[in-house]
């Protein structure tokens, strides 16, 4: 299951690298980098149950609620 304990071998180094990866980019460019990064990391994790748990945890507290159900455009 989703590991919420400390698991990154060099936290400061990782955090600096994360910020560096976005240096000089516009928000739009950063969004592209983040999207690719998420996909690469998701593949590394692989297990959909873990990924789902991470998605839920990431959304928790944002906009006040869990992801809404898809709503059809018409009845």
């Amino acid at each position, binding site marked *: 299951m989703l590991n919420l304990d400390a698991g990154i071998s060099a936290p400061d180094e990782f955090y600096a690298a994360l910020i560096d990866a976005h240096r000089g980019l516009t928000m739009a460019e950063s969004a*592209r980098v983040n999207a690719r990064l998420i996909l690469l990391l998701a593949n590394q994790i692989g297990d959909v149950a873990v990924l789902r748990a991470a998605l839920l945890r990431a959304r928790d507290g944002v906009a006040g609620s869990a992801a809404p159900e898809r709503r059809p455009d018409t009845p």
Partner: protein
Amino acid sequence: MVAEAPGVAFGYVRSADQGAPRPVRHRLVVVGAGPVGLAAAIDLGQRGVPVVLLDQDASLSEGSRAICFAKRTLEIFDRLGCGGEVAERGVSWNTGRVFFRDRELYHFDLLAEAGHHRPAFVNIQQYHVEASLLARARALGGIDIRWQHRVTAVAQDDDGVMLTVATPEGEYRLGCDWLLAADGSRSTVRTALGHTSRGQVFRDRFLIADVRMQAPFPAERWFWFDPPFHPGQSVLLHRQPEDIWRIDFQLGWDADPAAERTPERVVPRVRALLGADVPFELVWVSVYTFACQRMARFRDRRVLFAGDAAHGVSPFGARGANSGVQDADNLAWKLALVLDGAAPARLLDSYCDEREFAADENIRAATASTDFITPKSEISRIFRDAVLELAATCPFARPLVNSGRLSVPSCYAASPLNTPDGDDFTAAMAPGSPAADAPVRVAGVPAWLLDHVGGAFTLLCFGAVPAHLPDLNLTLRRVVVAPHDGTAPSGWQALEEDGTLSARCDARPGTVYLLRPDQHVAARWRAFDAARLAAAVQRATATVAELCAC
């Protein structure tokens, strides 16, 4: 057989029913002579059920419309007697290529496995398919096809259905025991009975341009995301017979459908794809939108709904006509048994269970494809493009690319007609699955398994023939694979094989499969047992067991 060309009109013919003092009562009326209605009519006709087939028009489909006919549909057409004609006339293809901007991302082979009669897909204009089905229906006899007979009202009670039908000579009334509505996405029957098809409408428009040209493209499915010749949108290219190519351009929701249909708009789009020096001729142009939706229930008492009348999907994945023909395949044998009094009417509820499940599967797949092709938000477009960018160099991202998950038949794994496995088998060909085809030999002559099973319930025995069969009260086709002494007793069809069939069925000597008339697996065992066979047939026909075996 030479099929009619598009645009051929069939004359209105007055039916004797029109002058009858009281409405004439028929056993079965089918509304809609498209691929689904024709397939159902032929299937029922082959089972000896007289069919009245009504169609409001007087011609085959206008335009090529559904062009991709899947392997399973061709196998059904084989059973209906016109698979060879459709397959030979169509363009076979197994390969799809996906492009992003100016480069090819990857390609895929839909039928990587050898040893199947039919290819993954053939591309052929819908009107050619309808012409083949129509020719077969006429040759079969017993199918009373009435062009320009338009249903305007439907009423039903517990005993039957009463239709009001408009013709060029005025209205008449027509009764039937059972009604099959295969009258398309704007189904008159569905509306007349107060039902609706509910779901998601997609805010996007697409342009179909069928062009005739001499072109160097191979017979493959080519899909472009954001190509230089049509920036920001997707394009799909398919080859059809007779040097006709289907080009499908995504236009976006704001496109003006009337303006986009004009040659002034279409020709430059096509030229941008082909290059300025490739001559071509526009054959058919259409601008369309679509919805993924279905009716809540495909049966309302004595009325059954099939094809687009019952459910709709986006076109990516070719799940419209293919799933509709599979509806007909699922329903026809059940309706025939009910009409013959060999099964109770509740057998028809299994049509709903199985085909509503299939519709949901198709809607899920088509919706996922559409969401990928038409991202609904800025962030979904960013993720979509990130997947495409990574897919060029990273194999992991390719399974995430979705340019249409192409139609495969549903496995009715949860069907109440299945006898669950009691013996140890691998998952392939589990109860509910359509039988996989395999090469066989009949008296040394190469043949295909699927030409020798189905139509009726089929007992497929490996190695040995049972000494005694139970009295089943219905026709049981009997097939033995690789009989021990090379021959089969009277009433049995012997097939030889090279091991492919046994591998696909996970069969050992003694293994027995019970296949339904639509070639789906009903039950399987490691050893024949007459009582278990009888119980499985009863279960697969929704017939209550008369004797308790316990």
